């Protein structure tokens, strides 16, 4: 038999066993295989009951994040060869509730994303007939990096504050807020302060910096958060000293249901 490598998977089958357990598999060590390919091999040939999420197999959909040897990683973009001779330990992403095997509960994360109002908020309504908004390459560059987040949640797994403080809105959500705050077409900063200035917002981050180290897309949430703290503190003092001049939220862009 060709070379193989051992894979230890942290499994959890709530209907069969109340506690998680480790299970070991042996898979071929193919040169181009990612950790995800090994999991697919296990599911197809060794154990159909192993559950995990995946879709694109090219590092853009953000589904396949797991802990690989204790570090959060996109399993489709992490290769078996790098872990020779093994064994490789695979666990669900840290800091999340686990529903089954390698599948975590993402509802909380999705709620947090929404809480920062991640859509373009404009003062006046623009119509298609007004044509495009002008945005120079330099203006685009000012926020471009923050648009690259694939919502993989690796940063949430890497950040101890997320684990210690469930209210913390978290690195990706703040980076997403900044993506809109720094977009020259947007004027919704004021509406987003509500979440970010409050308890659970940006000031709960203690600048550990692990989020940026874990991020596979170089979004740099650390920088986004720090820059927000500077902006947010300024806003705070403005509101404290001269409330009238502070940017009052005009609208938050939400389209309500009419009953």
């Amino acid at each position: 038999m060709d070379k193989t490598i051992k894979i230890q998977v942290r499994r959890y089958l709530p209907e069969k066993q109340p506690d998680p357990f480790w299970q070991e598999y042996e898979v071929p060590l193919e040169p181009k295989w990612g950790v995800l390919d090994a999991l697919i091999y296990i599911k197809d040939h060794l154990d159909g009951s192993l559950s995990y999420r995946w879709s694109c197999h090219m590092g853009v959909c953000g589904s396949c994040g797991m802990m690989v040897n204790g570090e959060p990683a996109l399993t489709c973009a992490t290769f078996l060869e790098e872990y020779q001779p093994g064994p490789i330990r695979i666990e669900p992403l840290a800091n999340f509730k686990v529903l089954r095997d390698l599948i975590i509960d993402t509802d909380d994360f999705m709620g947090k994303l929404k809480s920062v109002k991640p859509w373009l908020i404009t003062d006046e309504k623009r119509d298609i007939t007004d044509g495009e908004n002008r945005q120079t390459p330099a203006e685009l560059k000012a926020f471009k990096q923050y648009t690259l987040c694939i919502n993989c949640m690796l940063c949430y797994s890497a950040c101890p504050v997320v684990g210690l403080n469930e209210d913390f809105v978290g690195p990706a959500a703040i980076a997403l807020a900044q993506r809109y705050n720094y977009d020259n077409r947007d004027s919704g900063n004021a509406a987003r302060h509500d979440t970010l200035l409050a308890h659970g917002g940006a000031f709960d981050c203690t600048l550990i910096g692990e989020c940026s180290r874990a991020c596979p897309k170089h979004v740099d949430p650390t920088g986004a958060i720090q820059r927000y703290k500077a902006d947010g503190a300024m806003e705070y003092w403005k509101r404290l000293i001269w409330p009238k001049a502070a940017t009052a939220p005009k609208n938050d862009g939400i389209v309500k249901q009419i009953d």
Partner: protein
Amino acid sequence: MSSSRNNDPFWWSFFGAGGVFSSFFIPIHVLLLGIALPLAWWTVEPETLLELVRHPLARIYLFMLISLTLFHAAHRIRFTLHDLLLAKQIDTPAAYLCYTGAIVGTVVTLVTVWTL
């Protein structure tokens, strides 16, 4: 998540200012006043030193340095307590304790440099 505003940005501003001050100035003071002077690597008459610190700029400088450093430290210690003890309940008492400490320290410092 509660959406009520709280005062984190307030404390953070002082934390930041204190961080800047302390990182630029504390080490040299430790070296000169805490190590060199006691070991007599250099000597100075207390009177000369007193005259120096009585200069209005020196008073302001000392006040800012000590007070802001205390606020900086108070904020960090508050969060570190939370991080190390894994206890959410501790955050509010810790915050009171730390910031009160810094405020008391600030008042004492003010009195001290004022009455030099």
